[in-house]
Protein backbone atom coordinates (compact mmCIF):
# COMPACT_ATOMS: atom_id res chain seq x y z
CA UNK A 1 0.00 0.00 0.00
CA UNK A 2 2.88 2.33 0.72
CA UNK A 3 3.64 2.19 -2.99
CA UNK A 4 0.64 4.45 -3.49
CA UNK A 5 1.14 6.36 -0.25
CA UNK A 6 -1.86 4.80 1.40
CA UNK A 7 -1.57 4.88 5.18
CA UNK A 8 -2.52 1.81 7.26
CA UNK A 9 -5.82 3.13 8.63
CA UNK A 10 -7.01 4.58 5.35
CA UNK A 11 -10.56 3.98 4.20
CA UNK A 12 -11.57 3.64 0.59
CA UNK A 13 -13.56 6.86 0.74
CA UNK A 14 -10.47 8.79 1.79
CA UNK A 15 -8.40 7.86 -1.25
CA UNK A 16 -7.44 10.70 -3.50
CA UNK A 17 -8.33 10.51 -7.18
CA UNK A 18 -4.76 9.94 -8.17
CA UNK A 19 -4.39 7.05 -5.77
CA UNK A 20 -7.54 5.41 -7.12
CA UNK A 21 -6.28 5.78 -10.69
CA UNK A 22 -2.87 4.36 -9.84
CA UNK A 23 -4.40 1.42 -8.02
CA UNK A 24 -6.71 0.68 -10.92
CA UNK A 25 -3.83 0.88 -13.35
CA UNK A 26 -1.82 -1.67 -11.40
CA UNK A 27 -4.77 -3.95 -10.76
CA UNK A 28 -5.73 -3.98 -14.40
CA UNK A 29 -2.34 -5.44 -15.23
CA UNK A 30 -2.74 -8.22 -12.70
CA UNK A 31 -4.57 -11.46 -13.34
CA UNK A 32 -7.24 -11.52 -10.65
CA UNK A 33 -10.76 -12.76 -9.97
CA UNK A 34 -12.34 -14.78 -12.83
CA UNK A 35 -9.27 -14.63 -15.03
CA UNK A 36 -7.18 -16.19 -12.31
CA UNK A 37 -9.84 -18.82 -11.57
CA UNK A 38 -9.99 -19.74 -15.21
CA UNK A 39 -6.25 -20.08 -15.37
CA UNK A 40 -6.14 -22.44 -12.39
CA UNK A 41 -8.97 -24.56 -13.79
CA UNK A 42 -7.22 -24.73 -17.15
CA UNK A 43 -4.04 -25.92 -15.50
CA UNK A 44 -5.89 -28.72 -13.74
CA UNK A 45 -7.72 -29.65 -16.92
CA UNK A 46 -4.45 -29.84 -18.79
CA UNK A 47 -3.01 -32.19 -16.18
CA UNK A 48 -6.04 -34.44 -16.46
CA UNK A 49 -5.90 -34.53 -20.21
CA UNK A 50 -2.25 -35.38 -20.36
CA UNK A 51 -2.91 -38.20 -17.92
CA UNK A 52 -0.39 -37.19 -15.30
CA UNK A 53 -0.47 -38.54 -11.77
CA UNK A 54 -1.55 -35.16 -10.43
CA UNK A 55 -4.31 -34.99 -13.00
CA UNK A 56 -5.56 -38.43 -11.99
CA UNK A 57 -5.55 -37.53 -8.32
CA UNK A 58 -7.54 -34.40 -9.12
CA UNK A 59 -10.08 -36.46 -11.01
CA UNK A 60 -10.36 -39.11 -8.29
CA UNK A 61 -11.03 -36.63 -5.54
CA UNK A 62 -7.87 -37.52 -3.64
CA UNK A 63 -5.04 -35.39 -2.31
CA UNK A 64 -2.60 -34.35 -5.02
CA UNK A 65 0.55 -33.52 -3.16
CA UNK A 66 1.43 -36.77 -1.42
CA UNK A 67 -0.60 -36.36 1.76
CA UNK A 68 -1.72 -39.48 3.59
CA UNK A 69 -5.21 -40.63 2.75
CA UNK A 70 -5.98 -42.61 5.88
CA UNK A 71 -7.61 -39.62 7.53
CA UNK A 72 -8.14 -35.94 6.93
CA UNK A 73 -8.93 -35.77 3.25
CA UNK A 74 -12.14 -33.86 3.54
CA UNK A 75 -10.94 -30.93 1.50
CA UNK A 76 -9.82 -32.91 -1.57
CA UNK A 77 -12.99 -35.01 -1.41
CA UNK A 78 -14.96 -31.82 -1.45
CA UNK A 79 -13.01 -29.98 -4.12
CA UNK A 80 -11.28 -32.46 -6.43
CA UNK A 81 -14.05 -33.59 -8.75
CA UNK A 82 -14.23 -34.15 -12.47
CA UNK A 83 -15.80 -30.74 -12.67
CA UNK A 84 -13.44 -29.06 -10.28
CA UNK A 85 -14.95 -26.52 -7.93
CA UNK A 86 -12.91 -23.54 -6.91
Amino acid at each position, binding site marked *: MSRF*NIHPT*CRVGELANKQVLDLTAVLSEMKIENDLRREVLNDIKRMKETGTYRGRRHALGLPVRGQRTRTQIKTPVKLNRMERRL
Partner: protein
Amino acid sequence: MASSWCWNCLSRLRPTPRALLPPSATPRISSAPFHSTAVHYAQPAKKKGNSLTVMKHRQSTSLRRKKKKVADRGGRPPAVGERKALRKRIVLSNPNALEVEGMLDLSPETMVDSRLRGTVLGLPVPMIDQLRAVQAFKPKQGWSIFRRPGTVLRRDTIEMGRLFEQISGEGDNAKNVKVVKKIVTGMKGSGKTVHLLQAMAMGFLKKWAVITIPDARELVSGETAYAAIEGSNPLQYVQPTATSALLTRTVDANRELLATLKVSQKHPALKMLKPSSTLEDLAKLGFSDPAVSWHVFQALWTELTATAPAAGLEKDFQPRPPMLVAVDGLAHWMTESAYRSAEFKPIHAHDLAFVHHFLSLLKEGDSLKNGGLLLYATSGSNNPNPKALNIALDRLAARQAGISTSSPEYPQPPAYSDADPRVLDLLQPAEKAVSPVELQTLGGLTRDEARGFMEYFARSGLLREMINDQWVSEKWSLSGGGIIGELEKFGRRVRATASASK
Protein backbone atom coordinates in the same frame (compact mmCIF):
# COMPACT_ATOMS: atom_id res chain seq x y z
CA MET B 1 -9.11 -32.32 58.67
CA ALA B 2 -10.52 -35.58 59.77
CA SER B 3 -8.21 -38.49 59.54
CA SER B 4 -9.15 -41.14 57.07
CA TRP B 5 -8.40 -43.69 59.72
CA CYS B 6 -11.23 -44.96 61.79
CA TRP B 7 -10.17 -44.99 65.40
CA ASN B 8 -12.26 -48.02 66.00
CA CYS B 9 -10.17 -50.00 63.59
CA LEU B 10 -7.10 -48.93 65.40
CA SER B 11 -8.63 -49.70 68.75
CA ARG B 12 -9.46 -53.11 67.39
CA LEU B 13 -5.78 -53.76 67.41
CA ARG B 14 -6.10 -53.99 71.13
CA PRO B 15 -8.59 -56.63 72.23
CA THR B 16 -11.62 -54.74 73.55
CA PRO B 17 -13.91 -56.35 76.01
CA ARG B 18 -17.21 -56.95 74.29
CA ALA B 19 -19.17 -55.76 77.24
CA LEU B 20 -17.81 -52.24 76.79
CA LEU B 21 -19.29 -51.89 73.33
CA PRO B 22 -22.84 -50.63 73.18
CA PRO B 23 -25.37 -53.28 72.51
CA SER B 24 -26.19 -53.26 68.82
CA ALA B 25 -29.65 -53.58 67.44
CA THR B 26 -28.44 -54.86 64.12
CA PRO B 27 -27.44 -58.47 63.96
CA ARG B 28 -23.77 -58.92 63.78
CA ILE B 29 -22.53 -59.42 60.30
CA SER B 30 -19.27 -61.10 59.71
CA SER B 31 -17.20 -58.12 58.76
CA ALA B 32 -14.63 -57.77 56.04
CA PRO B 33 -11.11 -58.26 57.28
CA PHE B 34 -10.27 -54.59 56.80
CA HIS B 35 -12.67 -51.73 56.60
CA SER B 36 -12.90 -48.16 57.69
CA THR B 37 -16.09 -48.24 59.79
CA ALA B 38 -17.35 -50.64 62.32
CA VAL B 39 -20.40 -52.22 60.83
CA HIS B 40 -22.70 -51.51 63.69
CA TYR B 41 -21.77 -47.77 63.52
CA ALA B 42 -22.36 -47.59 59.80
CA GLN B 43 -25.12 -45.39 58.48
CA PRO B 44 -27.81 -47.16 56.58
CA ALA B 45 -26.87 -47.22 52.92
CA LYS B 46 -28.07 -44.24 50.97
CA LYS B 47 -30.13 -44.61 47.90
CA LYS B 48 -27.99 -44.02 44.90
CA GLY B 49 -28.78 -41.83 41.97
CA ASN B 50 -29.70 -38.50 43.48
CA SER B 51 -26.15 -37.25 43.82
CA LEU B 52 -24.37 -35.35 41.10
CA THR B 53 -21.16 -37.10 41.83
CA VAL B 54 -22.49 -40.39 40.58
CA MET B 55 -20.66 -41.21 37.42
CA LYS B 56 -22.66 -42.06 34.40
CA HIS B 57 -21.12 -44.28 31.83
CA ARG B 58 -19.95 -42.96 28.49
CA GLN B 59 -20.04 -39.36 29.53
CA SER B 60 -17.16 -36.99 29.51
CA THR B 61 -15.63 -36.48 32.87
CA SER B 62 -14.23 -33.09 32.07
CA LEU B 63 -15.38 -30.00 33.82
CA ARG B 64 -18.88 -29.03 32.90
CA ARG B 65 -19.83 -25.47 33.38
CA LYS B 66 -23.15 -23.84 33.17
CA LYS B 67 -23.03 -21.30 30.41
CA LYS B 68 -23.85 -17.91 31.75
CA LYS B 69 -26.57 -16.25 29.86
CA VAL B 70 -25.38 -12.89 28.65
CA ALA B 71 -27.72 -10.39 30.13
CA ASP B 72 -29.41 -8.47 27.40
CA ARG B 73 -28.70 -4.88 28.23
CA GLY B 74 -31.33 -3.71 25.82
CA GLY B 75 -30.74 -1.23 23.09
CA ARG B 76 -28.11 -1.18 20.41
CA PRO B 77 -24.36 -1.08 20.79
CA PRO B 78 -22.96 2.44 20.84
CA ALA B 79 -22.92 4.21 17.51
CA VAL B 80 -19.72 4.62 15.50
CA GLY B 81 -17.48 7.17 17.16
CA GLU B 82 -19.65 7.48 20.24
CA ARG B 83 -17.24 5.78 22.58
CA LYS B 84 -14.32 7.76 21.22
CA ALA B 85 -16.29 10.96 21.66
CA LEU B 86 -16.92 9.98 25.27
CA ARG B 87 -13.25 9.23 25.77
CA LYS B 88 -12.16 12.52 24.27
CA ARG B 89 -14.87 14.55 25.98
CA ILE B 90 -13.64 17.58 27.83
CA VAL B 91 -15.71 18.79 30.76
CA LEU B 92 -14.71 22.21 31.97
CA SER B 93 -17.22 22.85 34.69
CA ASN B 94 -18.54 21.07 37.74
CA PRO B 95 -21.73 22.68 39.07
CA ASN B 96 -21.30 20.86 42.39
CA ALA B 97 -18.01 22.57 43.14
CA LEU B 98 -18.15 25.83 45.04
CA GLU B 99 -17.52 29.03 43.24
CA VAL B 100 -14.33 30.57 44.50
CA GLU B 101 -15.05 34.06 45.65
CA GLY B 102 -12.77 36.82 44.57
CA MET B 103 -11.10 34.70 41.90
CA LEU B 104 -9.42 36.95 39.36
CA ASP B 105 -9.35 36.36 35.65
CA LEU B 106 -6.23 36.07 33.57
CA SER B 107 -5.75 39.46 31.95
CA PRO B 108 -2.84 41.46 30.57
CA GLU B 109 -2.44 43.06 34.01
CA THR B 110 -2.80 40.00 36.24
CA MET B 111 -0.56 37.77 34.18
CA VAL B 112 2.55 39.77 35.07
CA ASP B 113 1.55 40.74 38.61
CA SER B 114 4.07 39.11 40.90
CA ARG B 115 1.90 39.90 43.95
CA LEU B 116 -0.58 37.35 42.65
CA ARG B 117 2.02 34.63 42.45
CA GLY B 118 0.62 31.38 43.77
CA THR B 119 -3.01 32.26 43.19
CA VAL B 120 -5.23 30.52 40.71
CA LEU B 121 -6.45 32.78 37.94
CA GLY B 122 -9.57 31.84 36.01
CA LEU B 123 -9.48 31.68 32.25
CA PRO B 124 -11.75 34.38 30.81
CA VAL B 125 -15.05 32.87 29.74
CA PRO B 126 -15.09 34.24 26.17
CA MET B 127 -11.65 32.78 25.60
CA ILE B 128 -12.62 29.24 26.53
CA ASP B 129 -14.09 28.55 23.10
CA GLN B 130 -10.85 29.67 21.50
CA LEU B 131 -8.83 27.45 23.80
CA ARG B 132 -11.12 24.55 23.01
CA ALA B 133 -10.63 25.23 19.31
CA VAL B 134 -6.87 24.93 19.60
CA GLN B 135 -7.33 21.82 21.76
CA ALA B 136 -5.47 23.33 24.66
CA PHE B 137 -7.44 21.24 27.15
CA LYS B 138 -6.63 17.56 27.37
CA PRO B 139 -9.15 14.92 28.48
CA LYS B 140 -7.11 13.56 31.37
CA GLN B 141 -6.57 16.91 33.03
CA GLY B 142 -8.60 17.76 36.09
CA TRP B 143 -10.73 20.58 34.72
CA SER B 144 -13.93 18.74 35.45
CA ILE B 145 -13.65 18.95 39.23
CA PHE B 146 -13.76 22.72 39.50
CA ARG B 147 -16.50 25.21 38.91
CA ARG B 148 -14.60 26.92 36.13
CA PRO B 149 -11.20 26.38 34.54
CA GLY B 150 -8.32 28.19 36.13
CA THR B 151 -4.55 27.87 36.24
CA VAL B 152 -2.08 28.67 38.95
CA LEU B 153 0.16 31.68 38.42
CA ARG B 154 3.62 30.30 39.06
CA ARG B 155 7.02 31.79 38.57
CA ASP B 156 7.38 30.41 35.04
CA THR B 157 3.99 31.85 34.14
CA ILE B 158 4.89 35.33 35.28
CA GLU B 159 8.19 35.13 33.43
CA MET B 160 6.34 34.07 30.33
CA GLY B 161 3.87 36.94 30.78
CA ARG B 162 6.79 39.37 30.88
CA LEU B 163 8.17 37.77 27.75
CA PHE B 164 4.86 38.33 26.01
CA GLU B 165 4.99 41.98 27.02
CA GLN B 166 8.54 42.36 25.77
CA ILE B 167 7.80 40.78 22.41
CA SER B 168 4.64 42.83 22.00
CA GLY B 169 6.75 45.92 22.75
CA GLU B 170 4.74 46.88 25.82
CA GLY B 171 5.56 47.20 29.47
CA ASP B 172 8.23 49.19 31.18
CA ASN B 173 10.95 46.65 30.59
CA ALA B 174 10.54 46.57 26.82
CA LYS B 175 13.79 45.31 25.45
CA ASN B 176 14.41 44.55 21.86
CA VAL B 177 13.41 40.92 22.11
CA LYS B 178 11.56 39.79 19.06
CA VAL B 179 11.69 36.05 18.79
CA VAL B 180 12.08 33.58 21.63
CA LYS B 181 12.40 29.87 20.94
CA LYS B 182 11.99 27.49 23.82
CA ILE B 183 11.86 23.79 24.39
CA VAL B 184 9.88 23.04 27.53
CA THR B 185 10.82 19.90 29.41
CA GLY B 186 10.28 18.62 32.90
CA MET B 187 9.20 15.48 34.62
CA LYS B 188 5.79 13.93 34.31
CA GLY B 189 3.06 16.02 35.86
CA SER B 190 5.17 19.16 36.07
CA GLY B 191 2.63 21.17 34.10
CA LYS B 192 4.17 21.45 30.65
CA THR B 193 0.91 21.17 28.76
CA VAL B 194 -0.80 23.64 31.07
CA HIS B 195 2.18 25.94 30.56
CA LEU B 196 1.42 25.81 26.84
CA LEU B 197 -2.24 26.48 27.62
CA GLN B 198 -1.27 29.53 29.61
CA ALA B 199 0.87 30.68 26.70
CA MET B 200 -2.06 30.27 24.33
CA ALA B 201 -4.33 32.18 26.71
CA MET B 202 -1.79 34.99 26.89
CA GLY B 203 -1.47 34.92 23.11
CA PHE B 204 -5.21 35.37 22.76
CA LEU B 205 -5.19 38.17 25.33
CA LYS B 206 -2.44 39.97 23.44
CA LYS B 207 -4.21 39.35 20.10
CA TRP B 208 -1.39 37.32 18.66
CA ALA B 209 -1.81 34.73 15.97
CA VAL B 210 -1.89 31.40 17.77
CA ILE B 211 -0.95 28.25 15.88
CA THR B 212 -0.84 25.02 17.79
CA ILE B 213 -0.18 21.36 17.31
CA PRO B 214 -1.87 19.78 20.30
CA ASP B 215 -0.55 16.30 19.68
CA ALA B 216 2.62 15.86 17.67
CA ARG B 217 2.13 12.12 17.59
CA GLU B 218 -0.86 12.32 15.27
CA LEU B 219 1.36 13.55 12.48
CA VAL B 220 3.79 10.66 12.57
CA SER B 221 1.70 7.71 13.70
CA GLY B 222 0.50 6.90 10.21
CA GLU B 223 -3.11 7.83 10.80
CA THR B 224 -3.59 10.64 8.34
CA ALA B 225 -3.23 10.70 4.60
CA TYR B 226 0.14 11.50 3.08
CA ALA B 227 1.40 12.19 -0.40
CA ALA B 228 4.84 12.73 -1.86
CA ILE B 229 5.73 16.19 -3.12
CA GLU B 230 6.80 15.72 -6.70
CA GLY B 231 10.27 16.95 -7.47
CA SER B 232 11.39 17.57 -3.91
CA ASN B 233 14.87 16.40 -3.02
CA PRO B 234 15.15 14.69 -0.57
CA LEU B 235 11.65 13.49 -1.12
CA GLN B 236 9.19 15.17 1.22
CA TYR B 237 5.64 14.30 2.03
CA VAL B 238 2.60 16.47 2.68
CA GLN B 239 -0.25 15.50 4.95
CA PRO B 240 -3.32 17.10 3.47
CA THR B 241 -5.89 16.04 6.06
CA ALA B 242 -3.73 17.05 9.02
CA THR B 243 -2.98 20.39 7.37
CA SER B 244 -6.65 20.92 6.80
CA ALA B 245 -7.31 20.22 10.47
CA LEU B 246 -4.59 22.69 11.47
CA LEU B 247 -6.17 25.38 9.29
CA THR B 248 -9.56 24.69 10.87
CA ARG B 249 -8.10 25.01 14.36
CA THR B 250 -6.28 28.18 13.48
CA VAL B 251 -9.30 29.85 11.92
CA ASP B 252 -11.67 28.82 14.72
CA ALA B 253 -9.34 30.22 17.34
CA ASN B 254 -8.12 33.35 15.55
CA ARG B 255 -11.23 34.27 13.59
CA GLU B 256 -11.36 37.84 14.88
CA LEU B 257 -7.76 38.49 13.95
CA LEU B 258 -7.74 36.76 10.58
CA ALA B 259 -10.95 38.47 9.49
CA THR B 260 -9.30 41.88 9.85
CA LEU B 261 -6.14 41.06 7.92
CA LYS B 262 -6.18 41.21 4.14
CA VAL B 263 -4.15 39.24 1.65
CA SER B 264 -0.99 41.18 0.85
CA GLN B 265 1.19 38.77 -1.11
CA LYS B 266 0.88 37.02 -4.42
CA HIS B 267 0.09 33.33 -4.31
CA PRO B 268 0.46 31.84 -7.79
CA ALA B 269 -0.41 28.35 -6.49
CA LEU B 270 -3.88 29.48 -5.43
CA LYS B 271 -5.66 30.70 -8.52
CA MET B 272 -9.10 30.80 -6.93
CA LEU B 273 -8.02 33.40 -4.38
CA LYS B 274 -9.46 36.88 -4.89
CA PRO B 275 -7.02 39.73 -4.28
CA SER B 276 -9.13 41.56 -1.70
CA SER B 277 -10.05 38.58 0.45
CA THR B 278 -9.19 38.28 4.13
CA LEU B 279 -6.86 35.72 5.62
CA GLU B 280 -9.91 33.91 6.99
CA ASP B 281 -11.17 33.38 3.43
CA LEU B 282 -7.72 32.26 2.44
CA ALA B 283 -7.56 29.66 5.18
CA LYS B 284 -11.07 28.47 4.46
CA LEU B 285 -9.98 27.44 0.97
CA GLY B 286 -8.04 24.65 2.61
CA PHE B 287 -10.97 23.27 4.65
CA SER B 288 -13.02 21.93 1.84
CA ASP B 289 -10.31 20.67 -0.42
CA PRO B 290 -7.49 18.87 1.39
CA ALA B 291 -5.62 18.62 -1.91
CA VAL B 292 -4.73 22.33 -1.77
CA SER B 293 -4.50 22.61 2.01
CA TRP B 294 -0.72 22.52 2.06
CA HIS B 295 -0.48 25.38 -0.45
CA VAL B 296 -3.07 27.26 1.57
CA PHE B 297 -1.08 26.75 4.75
CA GLN B 298 2.10 27.97 3.10
CA ALA B 299 0.23 30.99 1.79
CA LEU B 300 -1.21 31.71 5.23
CA TRP B 301 2.24 31.42 6.76
CA THR B 302 3.79 33.86 4.29
CA GLU B 303 0.92 36.25 4.97
CA LEU B 304 1.34 36.07 8.73
CA THR B 305 5.10 36.52 8.53
CA ALA B 306 4.92 39.28 5.93
CA THR B 307 6.51 42.53 6.97
CA ALA B 308 5.59 44.54 3.88
CA PRO B 309 2.98 44.13 1.17
CA ALA B 310 3.85 42.95 -2.31
CA ALA B 311 3.78 45.44 -5.13
CA GLY B 312 0.25 46.29 -6.17
CA LEU B 313 -1.35 45.06 -2.94
CA GLU B 314 -0.42 47.95 -0.64
CA LYS B 315 -4.05 48.83 -0.04
CA ASP B 316 -5.42 47.60 3.30
CA PHE B 317 -2.09 46.28 4.51
CA GLN B 318 -1.96 46.08 8.27
CA PRO B 319 1.10 45.11 10.22
CA ARG B 320 0.96 41.49 11.25
CA PRO B 321 0.87 40.57 14.93
CA PRO B 322 3.48 38.37 16.60
CA MET B 323 2.88 34.64 16.51
CA LEU B 324 2.74 31.95 19.11
CA VAL B 325 3.59 28.46 17.90
CA ALA B 326 2.96 25.73 20.45
CA VAL B 327 3.73 22.07 19.90
CA ASP B 328 3.05 19.38 22.47
CA GLY B 329 4.82 16.03 22.42
CA LEU B 330 7.94 17.08 20.52
CA ALA B 331 9.72 13.74 21.05
CA HIS B 332 7.47 12.00 18.56
CA TRP B 333 9.00 14.07 15.80
CA MET B 334 12.49 12.86 16.56
CA THR B 335 12.22 9.31 15.30
CA GLU B 336 11.18 7.57 12.17
CA SER B 337 7.51 7.89 11.45
CA ALA B 338 5.07 5.05 10.94
CA TYR B 339 4.74 6.03 7.28
CA ARG B 340 6.53 4.10 4.56
CA SER B 341 7.99 5.33 1.33
CA ALA B 342 7.17 3.78 -2.03
CA GLU B 343 10.19 1.50 -1.53
CA PHE B 344 8.75 0.41 1.83
CA LYS B 345 11.46 2.20 3.78
CA PRO B 346 10.35 4.05 6.91
CA ILE B 347 10.00 7.77 6.37
CA HIS B 348 11.87 9.89 8.87
CA ALA B 349 9.61 12.33 10.68
CA HIS B 350 11.80 15.19 9.43
CA ASP B 351 10.89 14.26 5.86
CA LEU B 352 7.27 15.10 6.44
CA ALA B 353 6.84 18.62 5.11
CA PHE B 354 4.50 19.61 7.93
CA VAL B 355 6.90 18.48 10.64
CA HIS B 356 9.86 19.87 8.76
CA HIS B 357 8.22 23.29 8.56
CA PHE B 358 7.71 23.53 12.30
CA LEU B 359 11.11 22.08 13.17
CA SER B 360 12.90 24.44 10.80
CA LEU B 361 11.54 27.32 12.89
CA LEU B 362 13.84 26.16 15.68
CA LYS B 363 16.92 26.78 13.57
CA GLU B 364 18.81 29.98 13.37
CA GLY B 365 17.47 32.70 11.17
CA ASP B 366 14.53 35.00 11.27
CA SER B 367 11.75 32.50 11.01
CA LEU B 368 9.11 34.63 12.68
CA LYS B 369 9.64 38.00 11.05
CA ASN B 370 7.01 39.80 13.10
CA GLY B 371 8.35 38.39 16.32
CA GLY B 372 6.80 35.75 18.44
CA LEU B 373 7.28 32.83 20.73
CA LEU B 374 7.97 29.21 19.89
CA LEU B 375 7.11 26.77 22.65
CA TYR B 376 7.83 23.13 21.94
CA ALA B 377 7.04 20.89 24.87
CA THR B 378 8.01 17.30 25.46
CA SER B 379 5.61 14.96 27.14
CA GLY B 380 6.23 12.92 30.26
CA SER B 381 3.47 10.40 29.83
CA ASN B 382 3.53 9.81 26.11
CA ASN B 383 7.16 9.79 25.25
CA PRO B 384 8.86 7.52 22.71
CA ASN B 385 12.10 8.50 24.45
CA PRO B 386 14.39 8.87 21.44
CA LYS B 387 18.04 8.67 22.46
CA ALA B 388 19.12 11.40 20.11
CA LEU B 389 16.66 13.94 21.50
CA ASN B 390 17.71 13.17 25.05
CA ILE B 391 21.34 13.79 24.12
CA ALA B 392 20.44 16.90 22.15
CA LEU B 393 18.53 18.29 25.14
CA ASP B 394 21.41 17.44 27.48
CA ARG B 395 23.73 19.31 25.13
CA LEU B 396 21.37 22.24 25.08
CA ALA B 397 21.37 22.30 28.86
CA ALA B 398 25.18 22.03 28.89
CA ARG B 399 25.59 24.93 26.48
CA GLN B 400 23.19 26.96 28.57
CA ALA B 401 25.32 26.18 31.61
CA GLY B 402 28.34 27.51 29.78
CA ILE B 403 30.09 24.25 28.97
CA SER B 404 31.93 24.60 25.70
CA THR B 405 31.37 22.07 22.97
CA SER B 406 35.03 21.01 23.09
CA SER B 407 35.07 20.29 26.80
CA PRO B 408 35.05 16.67 27.98
CA GLU B 409 31.94 17.36 30.03
CA TYR B 410 29.96 18.16 26.94
CA PRO B 411 27.45 15.29 26.50
CA GLN B 412 28.31 12.88 23.73
CA PRO B 413 26.28 9.97 22.45
CA PRO B 414 27.58 6.68 23.85
CA ALA B 415 30.01 4.89 21.58
CA TYR B 416 28.34 2.54 19.08
CA SER B 417 24.94 4.01 19.90
CA ASP B 418 22.71 4.65 16.96
CA ALA B 419 21.70 8.17 17.96
CA ASP B 420 19.96 9.81 15.04
CA PRO B 421 22.37 12.36 13.48
CA ARG B 422 19.52 14.36 11.98
CA VAL B 423 18.10 15.01 15.42
CA LEU B 424 21.48 15.86 16.88
CA ASP B 425 22.12 18.33 14.06
CA LEU B 426 18.77 19.97 14.47
CA LEU B 427 19.53 21.53 17.83
CA GLN B 428 23.24 22.01 17.18
CA PRO B 429 24.09 25.64 16.41
CA ALA B 430 26.68 26.52 13.83
CA GLU B 431 30.26 26.98 15.03
CA LYS B 432 30.57 29.57 17.79
CA ALA B 433 27.04 30.77 17.24
CA VAL B 434 24.68 31.31 20.13
CA SER B 435 22.06 28.63 20.27
CA PRO B 436 18.76 30.09 19.12
CA VAL B 437 16.84 27.67 21.30
CA GLU B 438 16.45 27.90 25.04
CA LEU B 439 15.77 24.94 27.24
CA GLN B 440 13.19 25.59 29.91
CA THR B 441 12.86 22.90 32.54
CA LEU B 442 9.69 23.05 34.56
CA GLY B 443 10.19 21.88 38.13
CA GLY B 444 7.88 21.89 41.08
CA LEU B 445 5.98 24.75 42.64
CA THR B 446 7.50 26.57 45.54
CA ARG B 447 5.89 26.06 48.96
CA ASP B 448 4.01 29.34 48.71
CA GLU B 449 2.66 28.51 45.29
CA ALA B 450 1.71 25.04 46.50
CA ARG B 451 -0.16 26.60 49.39
CA GLY B 452 -2.09 28.86 47.03
CA PHE B 453 -2.89 25.90 44.83
CA MET B 454 -4.11 23.73 47.70
CA GLU B 455 -6.15 26.60 49.09
CA TYR B 456 -7.89 26.76 45.76
CA PHE B 457 -8.93 23.13 46.23
CA ALA B 458 -10.18 23.93 49.71
CA ARG B 459 -12.09 26.99 48.59
CA SER B 460 -13.70 24.98 45.81
CA GLY B 461 -15.04 22.65 48.49
CA LEU B 462 -12.99 19.69 47.31
CA LEU B 463 -10.50 19.50 50.12
CA ARG B 464 -11.65 19.38 53.74
CA GLU B 465 -8.45 20.05 55.57
CA MET B 466 -7.04 22.89 57.53
CA ILE B 467 -4.50 24.30 55.12
CA ASN B 468 -1.59 25.35 57.27
CA ASP B 469 2.11 25.55 56.63
CA GLN B 470 2.83 22.17 58.14
CA TRP B 471 0.21 20.38 56.06
CA VAL B 472 1.34 22.13 52.88
CA SER B 473 4.95 21.32 53.67
CA GLU B 474 4.10 17.67 54.06
CA LYS B 475 2.22 17.53 50.79
CA TRP B 476 4.90 19.55 49.06
CA SER B 477 7.51 16.98 50.05
CA LEU B 478 5.29 14.04 49.23
CA SER B 479 4.68 15.44 45.76
CA GLY B 480 8.35 15.29 44.91
CA GLY B 481 9.05 18.95 45.61
CA GLY B 482 5.79 20.48 44.44
CA ILE B 483 5.20 18.62 41.19
CA ILE B 484 1.83 20.07 40.40
CA GLY B 485 0.29 16.90 38.97
CA GLU B 486 1.07 15.08 42.22
CA LEU B 487 -0.26 17.95 44.32
CA GLU B 488 -3.48 17.76 42.37
CA LYS B 489 -3.78 14.10 43.27
CA PHE B 490 -3.67 15.04 46.96
CA GLY B 491 -6.46 17.50 46.42
CA ARG B 492 -8.51 14.83 44.68
CA ARG B 493 -7.68 11.94 46.96
CA VAL B 494 -8.92 13.68 50.05
CA ARG B 495 -12.12 14.43 48.22
CA ALA B 496 -12.58 10.74 47.43
CA THR B 497 -12.05 9.63 51.05
CA ALA B 498 -14.26 12.39 52.36
CA SER B 499 -17.14 11.29 50.17
CA ALA B 500 -16.55 7.63 51.01
CA SER B 501 -16.70 8.23 54.74
CA LYS B 502 -20.07 9.92 54.49
